[in-house]
């Protein structure tokens, strides 16, 4: 009953205020009523003011201007780091004779040492010691990769960062083929 009369009142209300005063009343009442949970009009998404029931998932966090109080240059520094780490560089790794391939994220390794150690663990073998002259000596395995041009290259020749961007897939070669690739003649 009260609702019915309210609907009519608002429509036929005689007001002396200038156009736009509605918003002022809303502002005063909202500040007064929201004493405890007073997220002000600066909140861009007002939907977050509603208390949600347990079933509905919480509304996405609305960003309040200037909160938390972190200066822009700090925020910018962190953001670049974040986007960098979110995109991984996943490449397939195959080993001659193994029944199936694996996939690894090159981004999580700091360099060749870490990568090779991870491969050794993953496929349970030992890679020999790297030297520019002789490739991987002391083992019948050689880690190779296919680069952007489709060529089969020995892992370790180029700087790590260059390797990360040019490596398309890894292949752990075994046996005579490996020796041909790795060692000098």
């Amino acid at each position, binding site marked *: 009953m009260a609702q019915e009369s309210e609907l009519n009142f608002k429509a036929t209300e005689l007001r002396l*205020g*200038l156009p*736009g*005063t509605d918003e*002022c009343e809303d*502002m*005063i009442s909202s*500040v*007064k009523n929201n*004493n*405890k*949970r*007073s*997220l*002000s*009009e*600066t909140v861009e998404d007002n939907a977050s003011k509603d208390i949600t029931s347990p079933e509905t998932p919480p509304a996405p*966090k609305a*960003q*309040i*201007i*200037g*909160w*938390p*109080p*972190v*200066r*822009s*240059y*700090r*925020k910018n*520094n*962190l953001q670049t*780091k*974040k986007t960098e780490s979110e995109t991984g560089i996943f490449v397939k790794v195959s080993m001659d004779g193994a029944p199936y391939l694996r996939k690894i994220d090159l981004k999580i390794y*700091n*360099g060749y*040492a870490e990568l090779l150690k991870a491969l050794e663990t993953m496929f349970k073998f030992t890679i020999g010691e790297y030297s520019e002259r002789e490739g991987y000596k002391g083992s019948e395995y050689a880690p190779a990769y296919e680069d952007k041009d489709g060529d089969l290259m020995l892992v370790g020749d180029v*700087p*790590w*960062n260059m390797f990360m961007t040019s490596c398309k897939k890894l292949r752990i070669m075994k046996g005579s083929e490996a020796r041909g690739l790795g060692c000098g003649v």
Partner: protein
Amino acid sequence: MAYSFPEEVLEHVFSFLCSDKDRNAVSLVCKSWYEIERWCRRRIFIGNCYSVTPDIVIRRFPKVRSMEMKGKPHFADFNLVPEGWGAYVYPWISAMSVAYPLLEEIKLKRMVVTDECLELISKSFKSFKVLVLSSCEGFTTDGLASIAANCRNLRELDLKESEVEDLSGHWLSHFPEHCTSLVSLNMSCLGSEVSFSALERLVGRCPNLKTLRLNRAVPLEKLPNLLSRAPQLVELGTGTYSSEVRVDIFSNLSEAFSVCKQLKGLSGLWDAVPAYLPAMYSVCPGLTSLNLSYATIQSPDLSKLVSQCPNLQRLWVLDYIEDSGLEALATSCKDLQELRVFPSDPFGAEPNVSLTEQGLVTVSEGCPKLQSVLYFCRQMSNAALVTIAKNRPNMIRFRLCIIEPQAPDYVTLEPLDTGFGAIVKSCKELRRLSLSGLLTDRVFEYIGTHAKKLEMLSIAFAGDSDLGLHHVLSGCESLRKLEIRDCPFGDKALLANAAKLETMRSLWMSSCSVSYGACKLLGQKMPRLNVEVIDERGPPELRPEICPVEKLYIYRTVAGRRIDMPDFIWTMDEDAALQHS
């Protein structure tokens, strides 16, 4: 009695007075002391550029050599002050270029500085030595080129966190080959790469260079070249601290650091890679200041690093350090005075690191000299705050930011009034306080009752009513700066404490409940205050008087109303009704 001393003798005595407070006191003794003092004051500090005009300053102090000034309100750091607000330094530079030809130092904070200003500085002051631009904006690297090229005796160029339009790195090459006077260079806020050979030569020919803060663009493998040319450095800001891991780079770096026996402060360390941290271990025992707030390394590496720095007095770090790292800090760094922990993921909904209130409690227990804290975290309890207060009654600056607004004590779900109350009750020398979390009017009662030395207070999303604001304004005797956002504080407290505002530097209130009518009344009642309404919705005249204003900035001044305001700011005074936007 005073007139029997020759002026020169008094002047000589006054030359030993450094603090403004002392000099101001001396000026009040009698007319002749006022006169003598004003002619020999060499340094002036103006905390609010709009509190006075260049003419008034120059008229009173004709022989100034060093000038320091601040512009925008502190909340400008968090984008709460609209673009175009003001704080232009040009009128000051212009007036001083005529009045103070012997000016040597200009230090500005949160001001708008143009290339024109920089060029004018470089050409007007023949003995110019020190330029510090802290959080300033409005200039480009071309302006820096003028300074580099024309200031023959430049000792200090410090661009602390300013926003510079980076046109190119070429500005550095404008330092003439005969410039050997540099003592301090901070270019860490710039993006562009400078000519490395020019930088190398500059560093090599300045034997008194003590502070060098590089920008991110300087690659790690080149750092040894600079360090070997400046082994006398006391403060170093590295460039990017990341590179492919190579033995030769590591050994060069390690060797270069080992030669820097005077190094006390280290910063920069962008993108720090754990593999290269041991290269700096040789300087760690001597470090008193370490800024790791750009180093995204994890807790184990951070713990290891701080454990090598037993003489550390100041640590700035990201919350990657976690509670475990702070425990290592508390164990190893017994001289620690200042700790700042910044959030690595301020906008994430869930915590990404294991940093809680416990870390801060541990440091408060282990570090007896801890007096200055800035701490971002996601949970806090009254119990923790009470413990911190008990451990550290010597606290001077306490700024706590619980990331979720109005977060209660996570254990009891109560407001954090008791905890902050304990802080102000125990820490009798507290000068600066920033509040966060769920807070009622009660916390302000505690603050008004106990925080008698408090000079600066920052409040957000707190309080229930005007009573809260009233407690602060009527109780905090030493209050100079008060900044408030999103609190239900309105007209009553403000009008009842109008006189208090003349004893303060400034008051900022945004998204509160102060009505336009109250602002007008205050402006009319208090002619020595500028009551400025900032409202981007348009002229407040077009809305009813009871309508709250968006933002309000009140400050004492002898300059009268501003004449350089943008169209979204209105000064409330006797002519308020006659003003147009």
